């Protein structure tokens, strides 16, 4: 076969029709990307969260008093689940976007007929799906191991959706601003990880001395942990509405930022 045998010329005035949405293809590519490495991208993070449940919850749990009437092994499950979800969404998207930028194969998408918001959604979806799968796996295992219940499923569902949106977008944003892999590792280990441990995964902030309690309340991840804890055990350190409101604000703000980046091409295109 020769290249001229397989060349047909499109009519330049024919309307552009998609036989299968380009957006679907991009979403598929992003999901396939982490599924190909499912041991690293799903199983390993679930195992490490599970270790916390086993060590802190089961091994040490009996020596630690109940928190607000909740056995300690159950108390830590919601925070660990949300931490796993947000880390999965964030790290998936920051690395997929940064890799695409640094190898410049993101140009393949940017020069295609995909609209800016389709590129945004497509590049964000991998983190959403990965976070969701991580969350479901941990939820099932956490419930099975610790016997924690889901008292307010609706709150849990809404909070999950909002966390997925917020951190999927944050990952994309970080991938767009990053100049090196070091920067990405820096954000994960010096911002996301400390904030989530200080966000009350392992303790109730009521128990902290005054100043630290205040500090906790300016940490956005604190509210995510609270929202998840309300979803699981039915109550937390703040009201359901406040926790969800902070999540909505976070998801909306980060989505707006991300949309602006894709619409203007800022940092994506010189």
């Amino acid at each position, binding site marked *: 076969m020769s290249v001229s045998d397989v060349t047909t010329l499109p009519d330049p005035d024919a309307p552009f029709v998609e036989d299968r949405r380009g957006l679907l293809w991009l979403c598929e*590519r992003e999901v396939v990307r982490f599924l190909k490495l499912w041991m690293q991208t799903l199983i390993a993070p679930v195992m490490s969260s599970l270790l916390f449940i086993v060590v802190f919850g089961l091994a040490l749990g009996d020596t630690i008093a109940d928190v607000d009437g909740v056995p300690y092994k159950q108390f830590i499950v919601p925070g660990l689940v949300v931490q796993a979800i947000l880390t999965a969404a964030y790290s998936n998207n920051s690395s997929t976007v940064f890799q695409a930028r640094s190898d410049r194969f993101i140009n*393949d998408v940017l020069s295609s007929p995909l609209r800016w918001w389709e590129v945004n959604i497509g590049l964000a979806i991998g983190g959403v799906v990965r976070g969701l799968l991580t969350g479901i796996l941990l939820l099932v295992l956490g419930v099975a191991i610790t016997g924690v219940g889901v008292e307010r499923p609706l709150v849990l569902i809404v909070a999950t959706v909002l966390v997925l949106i917020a951190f999927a977008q944050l990952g994309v944003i970080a991938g767009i601003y990053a100049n090196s892999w070091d920067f990405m590792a820096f954000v994960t280990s010096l911002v996301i990880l400390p904030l989530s441990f200080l966000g009350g995964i392992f303790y109730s902030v009521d128990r902290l001395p005054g100043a630290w309690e205040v500090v906790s309340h300016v940490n956005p991840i604190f509210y995510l942990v609270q929202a998840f804890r309300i979803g699981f055990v039915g109550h937390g350190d703040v009201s359901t509405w406040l926790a969800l409101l902070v999540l909505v604000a976070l998801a909306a703000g980060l989505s707006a930022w991300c949309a602006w980046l894709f619409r203007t091409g800022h940092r994506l295109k010189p």
Partner: protein
Amino acid sequence: MRPALSVRGFTKTYDGGFTAVDGLDLDVPDGSFFGLLGPNGAGKTTLIGAVCNLVRPTAGEIEVFGHPHDARNARRLVGLAEQDINLDRFLTVSEVLIYHAGFFGMARRRAKGRAEELMDVFDLTSKAKVRPTALSGGMRRRLLLARALMHEPRLLILDEPTAGVDVELRSELWEYTRKLHAAGTTILLTTHYLEEAEALCEEIALIRGGRIIARDSADGLRARYGADDIAGVYLQAMSDAAGDDRGAAR
């Protein structure tokens, strides 16, 4: 007839304040084999980036077959093989081709069929399941070209496709591009190899310092500069332009 590419007053000033292209006008006729010839840093890649929605123009208008360059209708008519190889390292060779077609809205069955055809044409069939990182340089170049052709572009843009490739691959690439042109594809080729422009291009624009300094058919240029070949044209035009620059500086 409406040109494949029409550029009016295109200017690009990069973030640092450097103006790489300044008020550039260019028409590439439908069906032509068009060479954009100029030294490194002349602004060729910048111009191509703007045409392909990869560089934000500071000023000017760019149309592809009469459509604004950023319209979906324009995007799907253009195929681009960039100067630097940019292949998704997480995909296999056949996936690189299939997903690319997908971004252009192709159905799965057709994308698979077309990927098989192009892998056959470009001698990549045995590598279908291999990642691009495991390919030789020549195979990567061919894959880049195959990818640009997946969605059946009417305007194919090749940015220095032969820079740093060996003689054998170069003649292969010439063969492919000749056939594509014969089949009606408009080709915009940038190069700084003069013999390449001589061998392939019917129309040529010389670009230097972000401006077009001459543009004509290959024959027209040879006649205008009284040169035997494009190399002669190039050297004469570049030295004229350098003279103009010095004049302007004085």
